[in-house]
Each structure stands twice: as C-alpha cells, then as structure tokens.
C-alpha cells in the first residue's frame, strides 16, 4: 500500500493553507497535507492544534485566507461543501451530524440528495449502508435521535458509505464512544482501503491512530510538525515516547 506511486496526485491535498478567525487569529498557518489514494492517512496533534479546522477547511466548511485545496491535483479552493459529494468525497464530522427528528432511513436518503431522482441508485445506496451495518436495517423506521451514541456513529458511517465515496474524511470517529465499540470502528476503518476508499482520519486517540494508519501527520499550532509513514512511528519509537516527544518538545522549547 505504501508503495503507491508518488507521482500520482493525491486524492485530496491541502497546500500551504492559512485559516483565520475574527480577522487575524490564525488557526492554521501554512498547513500542507495529502491523502494519498488507497491509504489511510492519520492526523494527530494536541487540542487546539487545528486538526478539525484542517478537515473543515479541506471540506469547504471554512474558507482559507491563503493556500489551496486540491482534489486529484486540481485546485478546488473555495468550492462549497455540497460539491464534494459530487467528487466522491464524504465527511463524517466530529460533532453529531444526524438529523435527529428524521428516521434512520430518511437520514440515509438525504445523503443520496445528489442523485435523488435515480430510484435504483438510491435503493442500491440504502442496501450498501444496511449491508455494512445490519443494525440500521432493523431500526430504519426509528428516529435517529432515539438511538444510542454508538449506533448513531454507525449510522453516520453507513450514511457516508452509502454513497460509495472514493475518499472518506473522519473527524475523531471514536470520541465519546465506549471502548468496545471504538474497537469495532477501528476495525471497520482498517477495512476501508480494501473497498477502494481513501481515508483521512483525524484523531485524538494517538495509539489507535498509529495502529490503523499508513501515513501520519502530527500537527501543532496549526502547522505541520512531523509527518512520515506510520510504520516508522511504530517502529522507531514506542508510542508513549512519541507522545512524550511532541508534548515535551512543546513545553521545553
């Protein structure tokens, strides 16, 4: 997997992106990252490092003040979020993105908005989600808001997968999820490249992230700190040392 050609443009790329709130408070400063095809790319870093901001900027939910967003090497900076679906790029944000007062099935149907007229395709998409998570089929008439946290997370994942995306962006998929279910989610993520899905995973859960990912970015204060293959992270230094390194570095400089 890691041998994917370096010449091929990345599925998704941030190039020197700056994002600012309230005029001049920079959240991201010249951040660059790439999600290469067929790989799981991880983004870790401490609170406030700008991980989620990077994802939101990638997905058009925030407008960069400088830098570019590229899809397959083509510049799409400023493209509104709803266009990303058309490019086969789906996002599962950190905060709940379900429509609580709609049924599970309606939540899935809404994801099919861009091809809502195509009944066959919509049916196919629903089937795909149900096949991934059979629990959703059982509860398809229930209100999304009535499900447990884990089930809601599965619905969000199923909803994103129903579209058969080429690229999936995940923002802290296991935050506030019980450990047992978290393990299921990581197992599921690990299986995605086999389905031909490129993954960009933002996570606080450093250990799991390092286990799951092929390539890893460490962010700090809205900037790239380190990046490299996850195997290098795993092998060259122990996990605890890794955390200690980037945290201690910060304090002692």
């Amino acid at each position, binding site marked *: 997997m890691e041998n994917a050609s370096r010449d091929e443009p990345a599925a998704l790329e941030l190039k020197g992106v700056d994002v600012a709130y309230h005029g001049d408070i920079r959240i991201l400063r010249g951040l660059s990252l790439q999600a290469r095809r067929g790989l799981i790319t991880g983004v870790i870093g401490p609170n406030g490092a700008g991980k989620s901001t990077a994802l939101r900027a990638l997905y058009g939910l925030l407008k960069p003040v400088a830098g570019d967003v590229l899809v397959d090497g083509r510049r799409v900076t400023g493209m509104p979020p709803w266009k990303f679906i058309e490019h086969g790029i789906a996002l599962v944000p950190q905060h709940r993105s379900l*429509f609580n007062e709609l049924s599970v099935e309606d939540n899935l149907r*809404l994801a099919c*908005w861009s091809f809502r007229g195509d009944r066959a395709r919509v049916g196919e998409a629903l089937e795909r989600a149900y096949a991934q998570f059979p629990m959703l089929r059982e509860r398809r008439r229930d209100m999304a808001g009535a499900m447990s946290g884990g089930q809601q997370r599965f619905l969000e994942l199923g909803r994103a997968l129903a579209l058969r995306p080429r690229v999936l962006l995940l923002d802290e998929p296991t935050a506030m999820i019980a450990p047992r279910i978290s393990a299921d989610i990581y197992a599921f993520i690990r299986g995605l490249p086999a389905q031909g899905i490129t993954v960009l995973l933002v996570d606080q859960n450093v250990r799991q992230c390092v286990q799951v990912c092929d390539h890893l970015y460490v962010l700090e204060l809205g900037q790239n700190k380190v990046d490299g293959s996850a195997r290098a992270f795993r092998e060259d230094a122990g996990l605890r040392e890794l955390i200690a390194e980037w945290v201690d570095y910060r304090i002692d400089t």
Partner: protein
Amino acid sequence: MGLLILNGLANGLIVGGIYALVGVSLTLLYGVLRVVNFAHGEFVIAGSFLAFALFSGLGVPPLLALPVAAIAFFAAGWALYYVLIPRLALSDDPELMSFLMFYGVSIAAAALMLLLFGADSRSIDDTFSPVSVPLGPIYVSTARLVALGITAVLSLALAWFLFRTLPGKALRAAIMNREAIQIMGVDIVRLSAFAFALATALAGVTGVLIALVFPAFNPFSGAEYTIIAFIVVVLGGLGNPMGALLAGVIYGLAEQMATVFLPQAMAQIVGFAILIGTIFFRPSGILGTRSRR
C-alpha cells in the same frame, strides 16, 4: 351567549387557520435561514393587494389569484433572497441584524404599496353566492368557509411536503442541523433561497386569503400581521412548522374568545400576554421539547 360562543369558535377556527399560515411561513424562514423577517406582514398584505389589482384591473377572481400570487411571490422571494441575505450573512450578528434589516424592508414595502395603491382601505368586491351558509344556529360567510378549506388544503399540502417528500425533509433537516445538511451534498444556498421563496409564496397566498376573510386592507395593515406572526411562531416554537400551524389555530381561538368575553379594545392585550407568557415560561413553544435560551 351560547350563540356568541359558537360564533367565536367558528371564527376562531377560520381566523386561526389564516394565522397558522402567516406563522408557518415565518417560522420556516427562521428555521432554515435564522432570519427574523420583520416585514412578513407587509409581504402578506402585498398578496392582498396583488389579488386586489388582479381583480379590479383584469377582473381575475381571488381564487384564480391564488396560483398567480404563489408564482409571483415565489419568484420575488427568490430574487430578494439573493439581494439581501448573502451580504447580511457577513455581519457580526446576522440574526439580530436581520431583525433590523427587515424592519427597513417593512417600512419600504409599506411605502411602496402606499405609492402604488394609496392610503385608503381596499376591498375586493367579489362575493360568493350564496353569501353565507347556515351552520346550525349560526351563519358563516361562504368566503370564509372557502378560505378555511384552502387553508386546510394548503396546510395538509405543506405537511405532506415537509414530512413525505425528500426536499421537504431536506428543509426540516436544514432546520435540525444546518451544517450537516451541507455535507449531504445539499446546496445550502439554493435550499435557503428556496425556503425564502417558499415562505414568501406562502405569505402572498395568505394575503389573497386575507382579502377573502377580512375584506378591507391597507398598506399599513402589514404590521399587525407581523405581530400576529411573531406570536404564533413563538407560541409554536421558533423554527417549528407544525408547532406554528397548531399555535395559529390556538391563538385564533384565544383571540376570538377574548373578544366574546372582553371589550374588543382589551382583547388585543390577550395576544401580547400569550406571547410574553410563552417566552417566559415555555420558551421552546407548545410543541417544543428543547429549551432554547
């Protein structure tokens, strides 16, 4: 007295239906766009004037004016959205500034109608035959019954749209989670423009119905409907369309019953009291479950 109460109930239902429509369009706007349309009443009255102009100019009966108003106001709403809202979204507090901006729109709209139609009250001299229908011991005007019928059909159609069709569900979804709807691939700008246009079209249609139910209107009647719309919207829960429909009927009944038992001049206080009481004791409205602020 019994007769009076019966009359009050019948009126309350009809008037309440109208109020429900006035409220539901305002609440849709707030829900999807977080925009407080202070000019809503003026939009409604503009609908009445459109019906008047069509009738007195071209002899088009009000019932035929309904689809015309729907189309014309939908188009106007669509255009107005692109003129006003994108720039408004840039301000520090768009929600509060929208209140102020639509204050201006309401002044301008009333002034425009004044220029076009003059200050005096207008009415549409088109009567149904028979003019009224006996319902048990009371008589109800045919025009009002027709309006009630249309209101009911419109409400059902709206409910069907919102709860049974995908675009309707998308609108409701946008109210529930404005960011998430964008990552579903829904163009939020177009959806918002559609919501604005739909709400405006509803306002226009309601205006035509008002011309049937309350035969006289003038450019300054708008403000009263704005207040009523606010009462209904707050009572039903901000951004809750079904709540607004229910609240409209409740408020219509309350208002009419108040006029039965209180002097007419006193009865208006009841409406304000309901509004204030709701915000204080049940800010999420009658159907609301979450408390906001």
